[in-house]
């Protein structure tokens, strides 16, 4: 002991005892004030916290009582939404008095609000262990379980969506298809290719009647199907029905007269990451930040083929499968394949073939 720190006389001892007693009663008074202020309502919460803080600073109370101070302060912090502080206060309270059930409750509540679900559960369980009949803790535990289940369910959905999209990207990569920016989004919406259980791709395909820029969709064009089969079906619905296509007054668009073209080569090939992002749009995983393919993709922004402005029209042989056409090296698929329909019999045909017509932007 240092020289001079030991009380020398009885008077000094008595004085120190008096000071200690004073501090103790101050602390108790502050605690009462704090409690009263909390009862008074929201506007007084901050003041209540100050009271409790000052009471703690007196350092005049035993562990059990100090624990109550901390746990009371935690309570007000919870009410104010200061969840982090509520947690540290509760933790202090528990440390000072492991029998303080309210402290466990408040710790659990704070953790729940901070989305620390495992910790919340753990505090609940510690509390229930000490007080098995505590209904509030049990109720809180159920709440936490529910939130956990919801979170796990959401995470599972996100994982699933991500995995499916990655499988799709992989299938596209295996087939060496080139994908570019989506065109005609107002028509295609959120349509996407789909992988069936045999690993075969099914594409939604947009048909544009170039002459009038009217459109049609083949919702499910399996990559192993031939164009002729789908054109047969469309012609039954549109060309041979009565009335025929409303804008085709002279009936130029018949099964034998139509030809299909795609636009070759101009545009940018998208990287795997960009394709993955497109495929995730509208799914549970749409907002996932890191999707794992962060390495610099070779094809990112890679301009390909024809110089800008000159579109080249390539005729589609009806007797080929969709896959065979999509994998043509000069075909950059605008996310959803687009084919232009023209009629040999229409006057428009000549303009189209000679490159005089370009799709309106």
């Amino acid at each position, binding site marked *: 002991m240092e020289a001079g720190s030991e009380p020398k006389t009885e008077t000094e001892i008595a004085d120190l005892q008096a000071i200690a007693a004073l501090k103790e009663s101050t602390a108790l008074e502050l605690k009462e004030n704090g409690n009263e202020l909390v009862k008074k309502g929201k506007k007084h919460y901050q003041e209540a916290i100050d009271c409790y803080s000052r009471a703690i600073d007196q350092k005049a109370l035993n562990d059990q009582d100090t624990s109550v101070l901390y746990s009371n302060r935690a309570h007000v912090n919870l009410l104010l939404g200061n969840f982090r502080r509520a947690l540290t206060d509760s933790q202090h309270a528990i440390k000072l008095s492991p029998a303080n059930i309210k402290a466990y409750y408040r710790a659990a509540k704070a953790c729940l609000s901070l989305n620390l679900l495992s910790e919340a559960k753990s505090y609940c369980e510690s509390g229930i262990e000490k007080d098995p009949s505590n209904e509030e803790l049990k109720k809180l535990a159920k709440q936490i379980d529910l939130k956990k289940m919801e979170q796990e369910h959401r995470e599972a959905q996100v994982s699933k969506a991500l995995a499916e999209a990655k499988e799709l990207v992989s*299938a596209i990569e*295996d*087939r060496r298809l080139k994908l570019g920016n989506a065109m005609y989004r107002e028509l295609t919406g959120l349509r996407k290719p789909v992988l*069936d*259980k*045999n*690993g*075969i*791709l099914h594409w939604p395909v947009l048909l544009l009647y170039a002459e009038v820029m009217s*459109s*049609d*969709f*083949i*919702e*499910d*064009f*399996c*990559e*192993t*199907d*031939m164009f*002729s*089969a*789908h054109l047969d*079906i*469309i012609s039954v*619905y*549109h060309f041979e029905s009565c009335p025929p296509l409303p804008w085709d007054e002279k009936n130029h668009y018949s099964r034998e007269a139509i030809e299909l073209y795609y636009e070759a080569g101009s545009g940018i090939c998208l990287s795997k990451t960009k394709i993955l992002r497109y495929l995730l749009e509208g799914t549970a995983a749409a907002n996932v930040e890191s999707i794992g393919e962060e390495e610099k993709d070779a094809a990112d922004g890679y301009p390909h083929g024809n110089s800008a402005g000159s579109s080249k029209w390539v005729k589609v*042989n009806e*007797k*080929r*499968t969709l*896959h*065979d056409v999509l994998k043509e090296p000069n075909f950059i698929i605008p996310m959803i394949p687009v084919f232009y329909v023209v009629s040999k019999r229409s006057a428009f045909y000549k303009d189209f073939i000679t490159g005089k017509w370009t799709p309106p932007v």
Partner: protein
Amino acid sequence: MATELEELIDFLTAPSPPVKKAAVDIVRGLTGSEDGLHSLSNYANTVLSSLSRLLSDEKEVSEPAAEALVNLSQNAGLAAKMVEMGMIKIAMDLLYKPGSSITRLLVMLLVNLTQLDDGISSLLQIGDDKMQGLYVMKLVRSFCRSNETNDDPFDHVGSILVNISKKEEGRKMLLDPKRGLLKQIIRQFDSSSPLRKKGVSGTIRNCCFEAENQLQNLLLISEFLWPALLLPVAGNKIYSEQDTSKMPLELGSALSIDREPVKDPEIRVQALEAIYLIALQEAGRRALWSVNGPRILQVGYEDEEDPKVMEAYEQIGSLLVHGNETEEPSTNSSK
């Protein structure tokens, strides 16, 4: 006191060329008989390693040595020993040596060695990350590059491919779209060599056992696959315009003209088995319908007389009848 046989085997590694030549000729003769094989197998390790060393000598020695090894490799135990001592690598290294006169024999040796699981693994180079598949790629390239000469030394590669496709790793490698091996192999189906045709047919059929897991790797080369599978079982008649209009171009035009029937019933059975395996899968049936496959099978069945082949047709027939409801390609068209 060494026996005559032991002396003979010793002479295989003699420094004097005429002695070596005499010895290897005799050993080759021995391998042509059951008794000779049996006696030699008592000294398997020595004989095999000596013979394999002789493979790199000039042709008077290397040819009989190779013949001897081919004969010995027909015995499973000896073949296993050869694989163990790295005979596959030795053969592959020598196969592409310029001026090699034992190419055909080495290929036949590989055919025998790949009858064994270990032989297949060794040829596929499983476990060697960098080199995996290199041997197979080389063999396929040689197989596909040959001229239409009779007696092409690589004719037997077809049989090697049939062997390796018996193993899942082999099928996976052949079906891998990045390697494009199956696509190259299928094209050889048009060859006039019956040996080649059979090799291709057997390989395709084996690969179709992967239809359950890798259907896309089969269907995405359907441009080449369907002609190879359907033409042999399309019968002899010329098809009508109505039928061929529903088929892809190559298939349709091939069936619109007179053609040579495929005489070997085993090839026809293999083609049908392959089609059956594909048709077990929903997408496979769909693809078959989309090329008017069932019609082809129907017409082909009418001309068929071989009972085994007929049975194979019938098997597919009942599968297609009892398969899914919606077999025709379906489309939703909406404005």
